[in-house]
């Protein structure tokens, strides 16, 4: 995986992952994501876009889950959005949606957050 694009949109830090997420890049991706989230501590939610992720295995999911635990410890939600059929199959096999929010698309992830705000106007 090469360097990823990202954008801060209100409370959401949106990270656009791409390529194959396996052992060959898991450590590098973990470090890059940790640096990015450390530099954007105002974000309340980090959304990992996976539209352009072509392959993920347990090393890639382990990397994502490690970021989830790290962010959860400071009250930040990590979500996955837009994974294609292939990546979704692997997420399902590993039960990832039971560990963190998984949305079909970035749009769904963003509207889910708006829904939360609408119903819990705090």
């Amino acid at each position: 995986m090469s360097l990823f694009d990202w954008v801060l949109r209100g409370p959401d830090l949106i990270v656009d992952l791409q390529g194959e997420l396996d052992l060959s890049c898991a450590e590098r991706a973990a470090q890059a994501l940790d640096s990015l989230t450390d530099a954007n501590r105002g974000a309340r939610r980090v959304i990992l876009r996976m539209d352009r992720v072509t392959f993920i295995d347990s090393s890639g999911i382990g990397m994502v889950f490690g970021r989830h635990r790290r962010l959860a410890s400071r009250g930040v939600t990590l979500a996955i959005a837009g994974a294609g059929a292939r990546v979704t199959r692997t997420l399902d096999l590993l039960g990832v949606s039971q560990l963190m929010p998984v949305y079909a698309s970035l749009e769904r992830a963003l509207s889910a957050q708006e829904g939360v705000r609408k119903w819990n106007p705090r």
Partner: protein
Amino acid sequence: MEPKVNWARVEFQSSALNLGFARVAAASWAAGLGFTLEELDDIKLAVSEAVSNCIVHAYPQCPGRVLMLLSASDHALTVSVQDEGIGIEDVTAARRPGVSGSSQRMGMGFTLMEALSKSMEVTSMPGHGTTVVMSFTPGEG
């Protein structure tokens, strides 16, 4: 009529740089056996897990040899991934989910391989290496 048997051997260093190659090599070799694209993706994932185990667990200090043996008989595919690494003391325990969680892979490698293949066998001799044999049949995924 005798069953048609074909095979291929691929040998490579246990480096994460070879992981993508191993996946694609297995899937492209299996492509002629009647698997759907989804089934070929499952084979790729299973191979990725098996080879990742070699890289992380079998050769924790420095890279060693991985031998991937592909064989086909009557449209069934067998993938064997062998290493000459440190081996596994307790294979039954290692196959349980979450046992090798230290690797940051959730300890789910064997669980995934089992879910993706028709059958999986693990044999290991501590100090001598480990062999994982998985079989896949088209149209059963």
